Each structure stands twice: as C-alpha cells, then as structure tokens.
C-alpha cells in the first residue's frame, strides 16, 4: 500500500474535513520534493522564487527537531499548541514526543501543495492517527480550524498555549503567517470576552436549555438542512442596520429566488411590511422581547442555539433547527441518532447567519442592513438610537470611501468577516448590498436591486423543502427524551445531599479556624475530600449545567485564590469560604433546576 493510500484512508476515517482535497485530482507540485539526509531520514525540499529551501537538516533531521523543540515549555496542563506548517511531519513528531497526554496540537498548513506532497511522499500515519493532533489546511478546512480553536482554548487554558512556526515557513508564507497570528490573537480576545459572557449569561443559558427539553419533539438539527438548498441559490442575510430602511422593499422581489435569513433584530421591520423571511436566526439570550412580539414571528422556521432567549423555542410554532449547542443538548441529539453542527457564531447573530450560509454550501452570500456603523446617531433600522457606552470613537472606511463612525463590537464583527472572507474558496462570492455603512474588505459592493437582477433568477421554494424534513424525534423516541429528563431530575436529588454535606464540612472547618483550633492535616484531608467530590460531579449528565450556573462565582473566586496570602491558615480560610459559597449557590441552583426538570417531565408525559 502506498503512503498516499494509507494516509488518505486515515484522513477519511478521522473526519478531519480534508476530503475536499481528494475530490479533484490536484497535480503534485514538482517544486516540492523529497530527498534523503546523511543519516537516511527523508527530508523535504521546496523550490521557491529561485531559492532552494531544505526544510530539514541534511545531516540529522531528528536531532535538529529536538534542538528546535527544546525552546518550548510543555509542562503546563491542558496545553494547546498551534503549529504553522506541517512540512514533512518531522517537527510535528518532536512536539508529540514532548506534549502531555491532555494537550492538543493544531497544525495549520498554509499550502495545499505541501500537504498533498507530504501525504504522497511520507508515511504520516503515526501523526494522522493521534487523537489529539489535528491538521487543517488553509482554504480547505478553515471552519474546522475555527472549531478547534473554540473547542480547545477556554479561559482556563488560554495562557497555556504555544504558538510556533515550522522553520522557513515565515519566509515562504509571510501573508498566511500574518493571518495565522492575527486569528490566534483574536481568539485570545474572543475567549476572554466569551468568558465574561458565560459568566454573565450562564444561569440564563441553563434555564433556556432545560426549558427547551419539552420542545425537543418539534426540534431538528441544522444538519437536516445541509443539502436542501442548491449552492447557486443566493443566501441573503438581513441585519438590522440603519440602511435596511433604504432597500427593505427590494427584498420582496428576492423572495422565492433566494434564501432570506433574517436576524432576530431585523424581524420586526420585515414583518411590519409583511415580508416573510425563510429563516429567523437568533442566538442571544438577552434579545429584546420586541424582536419576537409579532405573532407571525413564531410561524417562520427558526435557527437558534438551545440557549437562545428563554421561551423563544417553547413558544415557537414552526420548525426549529439547532446549531452550536452545549454538550448537554448535543448529547441528547446523539441519543436520538443525530448531531448538532458547530457553527462559528462570531459573537453576533449576523455573523452566525453568515456561517450558516457557508455551512449550507451557498456560493453567493449577500448582506443587507449590515452597516456595522452609525448613520448619524442612528444605530438600527427604524431610526433606533441604541445607547451604548462608547469607550472611544472609532472611524473606519465606508463603502463609498468616506469615513464612518463605528463601535468596538461592530468593528470586531467587521474584522471577523474579513478574516473569514480571505479564506473562502474562489467560487464563493460575498456581496455587500447594504448600501451604506462600513466597508467590509473582500466583499463586492452592489445595490440590492442589481443583486436581485443578477443573482436571483431561479425560483426556489425553501418552505416546501423544509416541510419534507422529518422531525428528529419520532413518537417511538419520546421515551429517550423522558429518560434524559428523568436522569437530570434524579441527579438533582443526589446533588442536594452532596451540596449539603460539603456545606456542613466547610462551615465546621471555618468555625474551627475562627476558634483557632488549627489542624492542618485535617484541613488538607477535608480539602481533598471536596476536590474528590468536585471530580465526581464531572461525571454527572447535568455537570455542564451546574458548571455554567456557578461559573460566575468560580471565575470571581479563581481571581481571589490567585492573590497572595500571608499564611497557611488564611489560605485554608479562603479555600473553605469559596467552596461554601459555591456549594451554597449550587443548592439554590439545583432546587431551581429540579423544579424545571419536573415541569419538563410533566409536559412530556402529557405529550405521550
């Protein structure tokens, strides 16, 4: 079996989204070839701009990689290592040898040609088979890279990262390296923003997730929409920027010839004019009620996360398609024989809609109402002036070349788009038909009228296609949902007992400390007991819900623990005080969750 056949088979089995490389026969680049070092190890050579780059040592490539990798410290927990450049895999192996079992290695290869050469010329099976090693190729599986960054880098390990570059890649791929570094640093920012968001919204997320359990029989995964829209039907993303007022009427002529994705905030303006989009997209748990006030909003297919605004899912009458859920909800979908796709939300509803268009494979993506800038003092369609505290005034280039005023969050979204657009396949066009606002580099600026004339010339009935999609849960599978809810309920009952015990333990220790009855051995034993209990909680089905709900306290307490304390007694006093607060909060939370689970079970029982 050739190296290529062997490597390709592993890639296809591992589902690392690189299959597109095998769809077409991409010829091998004769400027990338293999040679043998003096010690017999295969090396990679690249000819580029009249220079020859030997990517490995000509004498002893393995020793070379050992010297190279020795500059990094792999001793931290739960590390994420991002390597720019695969080469022929030698440097990857040196990282694998050093990294801990709990670490993840994400390789970003900027060149399809090098990747193909590597899997043709070298046995990469040892690398490809490693469960904690992932390869992404720019322009092929970028979404997978975003997914990996999101899935592996959390606030707990954001400082445990290593970012490194394969020798010579910084010379061969300067632009790509800049983009790689930009995306990594944006991910840092995004993780810290997400951390604050989770801390802030955690309890709301949990309520919404439990509340949607009884709606599961009418829910689908977005995966069910994957192949329903032909790729040449345009996707129009309708955001609620001030310019929407200008061309909203034009959307009537696009209806039935494009898929209209309305962001939740743009929905009232559309419904007011009886323009019915094909989908509504919502992700924010704090969206104003006004977005869904019109009863017609409930009759439009909804794309959302399970932790979107409380009540939106349970009140919805039309089809619901879930995206990017927490594992608590994903696990239930798996039990029902499906899965919920991770869609890069990009922190706004319009960016989510953009990722959805890409997920559906649409080749023409059109923005409407995506100003990402002020129009005078107006922030949204209908002349709305949202009052947001502005740290600093930010000015960017507008679509007409003039300067427009923007906000920090909008600027972040604009950069997010630009980052994504850079890596889209050549046949995907992104057209900005907002007719106002900030210029998103990489988009083609057109009027909506021209877009409709040029791109919306095929009839397509989205509603009919959606109608034919079978529901995720059939009557026979209802018992699976009920069992899942019952399991949550039972776990809540056990948790009450556990939380009370830990609480009493903390109280008693704190009393002893107050009375100066110091016994470090006993304190340590009790501390270990609590840590063991914490570990055992992680096995619960509802652990993620608890974690999200007590997240805020945990985050704040983590900050406190990090401050330097004078002596050991103070350290124990702080530890037991923190645990007491966490478990106090947990008791309250579990009592609320229990009530919600009972409510869900009651509704589900009535359904059957």
């Amino acid at each position: 079996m050739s190296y290529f056949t062997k490597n390709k088979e592993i890639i296809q089995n591992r589902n690392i989204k690189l299959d597109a490389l095998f769809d077409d026969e991409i010829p091998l680049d004769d400027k990338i070839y293999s040679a043998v070092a003096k010690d017999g190890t295969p090396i990679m050579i690249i000819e580029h701009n009249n220079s020859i780059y030997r990517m490995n040592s000509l004498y002893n490539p393995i020793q070379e990689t050992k010297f190279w990798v020795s500059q990094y410290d792999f001793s931290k927990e739960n590390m994420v290592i991002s390597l720019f450049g695969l080469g022929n895999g030698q440097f990857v192996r040196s990282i694998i040898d050093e990294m801990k079992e709990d670490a993840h290695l994400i390789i970003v290869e900027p060149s399809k040609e090098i990747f193909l050469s590597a899997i043709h010329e070298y046995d990469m099976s040892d690398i490809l088979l490693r469960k904690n090693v992932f390869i992404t190729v720019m322009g092929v599986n970028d979404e997978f890279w975003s997914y990996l960054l999101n899935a592996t880098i959390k606030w707990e390990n954001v400082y445990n990262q290593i970012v490194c570059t394969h020798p010579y890649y910084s010379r061969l791929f300067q632009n790509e390296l800049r983009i790689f570094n930009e995306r990594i640093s944006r991910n840092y920012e995004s993780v810290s923003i997400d951390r604050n968001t989770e801390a802030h919204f955690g309890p709301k997320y949990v309520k919404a997730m439990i509340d949607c359990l009884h709606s599961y029989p009418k829910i689908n995964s977005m995966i069910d929409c994957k192949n329903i829209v032909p790729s040449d039907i345009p996707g129009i993303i309708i955001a609620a920027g001030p310019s929407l007022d200008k061309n909203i009427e034009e959307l009537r002529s696009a209806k039935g010839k494009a898929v209209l994705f309305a962001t939740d905030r743009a929905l009232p303006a559309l419904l007011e004019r009886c323009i019915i989009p094909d989908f509504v997209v919502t992700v924010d748990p704090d969206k104003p009620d006004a977005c869904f006030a019109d009863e017609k909003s409930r009759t439009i297919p909804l794309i959302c996360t399970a932790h979107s605004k409380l009540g939106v899912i349970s009140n919805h009458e039309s089809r619901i398609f879930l995206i990017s859920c927490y594992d608590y909800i994903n696990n239930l979908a798996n039990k029902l024989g499906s899965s919920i796709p991770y869609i890069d939300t990009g922190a706004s509803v319009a960016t989510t809609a953009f990722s959805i268009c890409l997920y559906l494979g649409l080749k023409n993506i059109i923005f409407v109402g995506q100003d990402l800038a002020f129009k005078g003092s107006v922030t949204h369609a209908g002349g709305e002036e949202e009052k947001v505290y502005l740290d600093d005034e930010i000015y960017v280039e507008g679509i007409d070349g003039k300067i427009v005023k923007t906000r920090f969050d909008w600027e972040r979204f604009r950069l997010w788009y630009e980052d994504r657009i850079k890596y889209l396949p050549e046949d995907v066009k992104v057209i900005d038909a907002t007719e106002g606002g900030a210029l998103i580099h990489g988009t083609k600026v057109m009027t909506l009228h021209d877009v409709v004339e040029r791109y919306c010339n095929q009839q397509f009935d989205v509603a009919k296609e959606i109608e034919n999609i079978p529901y995720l849960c059939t009557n026979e599978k209802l018992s699976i949902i009920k069992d899942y809810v019952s399991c949550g309920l039972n776990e809540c009952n056990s948790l009450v007992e556990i939380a009370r015990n830990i609480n009493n333990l903390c109280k008693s220790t704190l009393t002893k400390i107050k009375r100066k009855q110091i016994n470090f051995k006993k304190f340590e034993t009790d501390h270990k007991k609590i840590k063991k209990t914490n570990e055992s909680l992680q096995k619960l089905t509802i652990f993620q819900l608890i974690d999200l709900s007590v997240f805020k306290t945990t985050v704040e307490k983590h900050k406190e623990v990090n401050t330097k304390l004078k002596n050991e007694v103070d350290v124990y006093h702080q530890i037991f005080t923190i645990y007491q607060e966490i478990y106090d909060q947990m008791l309250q939370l579990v009592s609320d969750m229990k009530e919600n689970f009972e409510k869900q079970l009651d509704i589900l029982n009535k359904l059957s």
Partner: protein
Amino acid sequence: MEELKKSITDIAKKLKAVAIKLYQMKESEGYSDFAELIGEMSQLVSTIYVVKSQSNELMFHETEFLQKLTLAVKALEDRDTIMLADILYYELKPQLLDLRNYLEMTN
C-alpha cells in the same frame, strides 16, 4: 598548549550554542553570534598555524577547516539557516573536537 586546548573547547561550545539558536530559527541572534565567532575561529586557525610551524606533528587540516568555514559564510550570505547550523554542528565542531582529542592524547 593548554591555552590552545581551552580555546578549542570554548569555540566548540560556542559553535554548538550558535547551531542550536539557528535550528530554533532565532536567526538574528544566531547570525550575529556567528559573525563574532568567525573572528575567534580565524584567530584560532592562525594560532594553529604557528603551533604547526613549530611542530609538524599537529594533526589538523586547516585547509579543510577553512573550506568548511567558507561554506558556512556562504550559507550565512544565502540566509540558509539550517545549512549554516548543519555546517557548524556537524562539520566545524567535530573537526575542532578531533583536534582537541588529539592534543589530549599527545600532550
């Protein structure tokens, strides 16, 4: 002779340190350290010439060493970092260590 041995050991250590920096792609640091080292190596070769002229028994092929050094300088000019590291680590350093071992045995 002790001074010569010390000087050889010192330069061999520096060659290894520069090679590692280059393998780690710390190029500006590595190149500038190597530039400094060229002077020290030239000085060493001159010393070896003097010692050889006094005693023909010294086993050192200075022409070969200088040829390797020329290749290293060419790699530096070409910014062929890994090639430069290879020459320093696998060519120049071993030749110096051979000389030091020879001196150890004969003196």
